């Protein structure tokens, strides 16, 4: 069996073309694929990171942004420990859709899920959504907030590492798992995530 103590599922959602796949590939493979095609259905990648000397396995589910895959992607919300909601800072419509995404999250996700709002593509010159607007939105909806650039590798590592740290803290606070903990997804010991009080950390 693989050697890790925690396994967390992280799901990325957001409109088509905001850079979800690029964020995932930048983090898991360290590369920025130019001309990345639209994701079909759901992809998943795994990366094991170390937090305070303990191995944490992040199972990252990268969902398709296009509407017609919605019924596939929705089925992944419930088992997620963290949800990353991504928009494109140079594209107003992707920001305007956030309330719709939040409604979906409310409907399908566990209400204790850790939620992070990410404004991607900070490398773009043609910014349309100022940082503070995104920050305000995140604060109002009790989400973490971070601006990233998958292309310049800015804040990407930090995004996932902070998620790992936060989830591990939550798991440790509530060491008693939801059930007896002997069984969890993928042979590993998973610990359910406690009711993380979300606050803004910038």
């Amino acid at each position: 069996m693989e050697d890790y103590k925690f396994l967390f599922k992280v799901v990325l959602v957001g409109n088509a073309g905001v850079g979800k796949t690029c964020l995932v590939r930048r983090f898991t493979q360290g590369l920025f694929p130019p001309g990345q095609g639209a994701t079909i259905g759901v992809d998943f990648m795994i990366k094991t990171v170390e937090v305070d000397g303990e191995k944490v396995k992040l199972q990252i589910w990268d969902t398709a942004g296009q509407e017609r895959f919605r019924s596939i992607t929705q089925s992944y919300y419930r088992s997620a420990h963290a949800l990353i909601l991504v928009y494109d800072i140079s594209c107003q419509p992707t920001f305007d859709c956030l309330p719709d995404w939040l409604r979906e999250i409310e409907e399908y996700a566990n209400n204790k899920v850790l939620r992070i709002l990410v404004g991607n593509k900070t490398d773009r010159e043609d910014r349309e959504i100022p940082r503070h607007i995104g920050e305000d939105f995140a604060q109002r909806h009790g989400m973490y907030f971070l601006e990233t650039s998958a292309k310049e590798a800015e804040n990407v590592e930090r995004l996932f590492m902070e998620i790992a740290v936060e989830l591990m803290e939550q798991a440790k606070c509530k060491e008693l798992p939801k059930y007896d903990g002997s069984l969890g997804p993928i042979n590993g010991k998973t610990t359910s995530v406690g009711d993380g009080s979300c606050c803004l950390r910038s």
Partner: protein
Amino acid sequence: MSLSLLLEKYDVSTDEGLQKALNEIEKEESEVDEALSGVLSRACSLEGRLRAASQAYTKLTEVKTDAQIAADMVDKTAGLARDVSAKVRQLDLARSRVAECQRRVHDLIDLQLCSAGVEAAIKAHDYETGAGHVSRFLSMDPGSVAAARARGAPDPRDAMTRAANTLREHLVRKFEEAARKEDEASVERLFKLFPQIGRAEEGVDLLAKYLATQTETAIRRACVVSDVTSEAAVFADAVTRVVEAGGAGVERARQAAATHAPGLLHRALRVIQPAVCSGVRRIFTELVLARRLESDPHRSGISPLSAEPILAELALTHSRIWLYFTFLRRKAEVDAAPLKEDQKKACVDAVEKIINECDLMRTAQDILGHYLALERYFLEESVNKALKLATPQVGVTTSSLVDDVFFIARKVIRRAVSSGSVDGACAVLNEVSSQLERGAAGALRRWLRAPPHEPLPLPGPRAPRYPPDPVDKDVEAQKILYLAHMNEAEAGADWAERLASEACAAAAALARSAAERDKLTSCAAGLGTAAAAFRAAHDLALSALAAALHPKIVAWAQRLVDPAPHTDEMEDDADALPQALEQLTEAARAHISARAVDALLVAALAELAARAEAALTHNRYDREGGLAVERRARRLAAWAGSSAGAARERCARYTQAAALLALEHPSHARDALLPTPRLAAPEAKEILARRTDFKMEDIKRLKL
């Protein structure tokens, strides 16, 4: 030794010194004489050797002259050989030039013949001969033509190219005519000529266009859905007909091109595919209308019952399209098989690209989307209905919640796998896990959290003071239902795990890559969470059962350590507890699994033993009283040994404590603690001290 040294060494001024010097000189003289005679004796042999050497020298000179002559000879021979090979090379060159000349002469003659021949052939409508000429022209050495031009002849290529173009135009026109007339034989005959005139691609395009029109007609016929209200999978059938027609078209194109122009399937597919796409799209639009599909099935008000045939139809439709794609991929492989590795990959990739970008793929995704939305609705509604039926009611003693839910879950997973899509199967596995965990296991947990009074009967140590209440049927039913739910929780955990491995095995065939397999495994593992939820509900019930026994256990613990000997009814006294436990076990075995009974008995006996041991230290005993306690303990241990193997161990410590209490004398204590002492020495001494007739100093003196 020189004279000066001699003079230094010896004092020559004295006779004695002179004499010594003289002796020395004489000795040296004789040595020199000896040496000289030795040298003289060797002079003879030296002379002989010198003679031999001078003879050899003269011989060497002769050899040298001979060698010189030989070297000159070799040199000359080499020069000759070089000359010969140069001649041969020249000859070779000359011969190859002659051959080339001959070929070019032939080419030139042919060229004239070809351009004339093509025109003649066109006139005679003998396109095979014409194409043969063009083919000959194309295979000609370009040097011949260049050479012809260099000699000032009018460029023969112009005439030939003109003729070839005319032939091509004729062929295209003839092909189109034949296509219009649907003259299969001519189409096939003409198609074969295109690769010969170096226009394989154009030929494939023309053929594909022809086949596309044919396919389109076939598809138009296939699209017609006669009875849209029918519950049978009429739309799936229509889609099947359409993709079959498309597949037939593609296969004909491949077969026709296989021998003459392999690796061009993607060109044909690009022309034929749009007809298939639009046909399926048309059927899909009709399907959405006829089956009243909406992105949120709650709005359409379909009942779960009537959703089933639609779900089956959607899954079938999707799997048909998937089969068509698989067919295309396989044909692309076959078509490109004779090519080189890199060309082969390019061809296969080109087909894959068409598949991924065509509208049929998007339609398939739309179908899957509708299928999943409806499947989720069906699952939710069905599970809710099962929950409603299983909700505890007055007088009901059985529940089939787990059977019902897993029947639904299994059906839904099988259907999702039958759609052929990995993403579909994954999404359904996710939904099933969530419904099992939240719906079924959640409900069981809620129900099991509130146990009825005394779900399992354990008679108390004293006969009830009042006659027992008349059995209330409803309360009895409630107890039985509670135990039934407990069994369901246990079965649910096993079922969930079995379902996970079944689903993995069934869906493994769908995965085309390792990543897809991992995705499936991960989603199936979600069922593990559901299993854990069922198990947690079962554990909850088990601890509730143990808690319900608690008051009686406390009473029995007191009874076990009662110092009054009850001599008149000794046997009955000792057997009372085993009998009561037997009753409990029988009742439990009738209702819950052997595993659960064992767990319950272990918990009950552990508590009983611990409490009895603690109570023991609050009483004082005489020998009779001690014997009574020991008798009771032995009977209990014997019962545990025969009826509750797992619980026997729990009694061992208490049995030893009771044995200590029944001793004749403290000095026998060591025997009572055999074979393995379960009690520490101070504990054992404390128990011995409970006996009124044992002397404290005897106990203190004991070595344990």
